[in-house]
């Protein structure tokens, strides 16, 4: 299956792009996506605990199972205002 991954702010800079498509095995979870990104960019490891993930616009936990076509947003702690 394919999912679309968006990253913001510091995470976007570390990944080098705001958006990418990933091909995953069926049954993959949110945490699997993060682990794949972390293998590519080891600096992400220290940001994992503070990162919120939205799946199709809803904040989810790492053990959430993904479906084909899902959109994931990886978001650092807020800095607005």
């Amino acid at each position, binding site marked *: 299956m394919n999912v679309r991954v968006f990253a913001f*702010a510091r995470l976007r800079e570390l990944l080098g792009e705001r958006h990418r498509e990933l091909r995953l095995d069926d049954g993959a979870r949110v945490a699997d996506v993060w682990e794949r990104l972390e293998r590519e960019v080891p600096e992400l490891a220290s940001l994992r605990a503070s990162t919120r993930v939205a799946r199709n*616009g809803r904040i989810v936990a790492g053990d959430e199972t993904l479906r084909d076509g899902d959109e994931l*947003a990886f978001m650092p*702690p807020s*800095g*607005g*205002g």
Partner: protein
Amino acid sequence: MLAIAREPIDVAAVEAAVGAPEFGAVVTFVGRVRQRADDGQSVDGLTYEAHEPLAVETFERIVREQREQHGALEIAIVHREGVLDVGEVAVVVSVAAPHRREAFAACAATIEALKQQAPIWKKERYADGSARWRENSR
């Protein structure tokens, strides 16, 4: 009016958006880009980035929560995205309520909730040419 803006914010227009005549009190918070960072560094400006659909949804949820707590009121929230200079308006929250007590309380609670919950990020640019992402303290 609940929005992310890419152009300078017209404060009067945000306030006018909560103009229903049954509300006698209007409280507006205007957040501007400050010249000094909290650690004292001299700031040249800020760059804001937002997850726009989720930010607007977060604004909607904050408004619902304030209505549950304070009863009938109107809230307008507009936050900038993009590159801002010192002194530019970064965020405007306007609250209209029947009386001042609820208007003040809801305005304060709304900006605090926005700072904690809205998927919006800022990068401070410093006079020495460096830059750094800044998270809000909890």
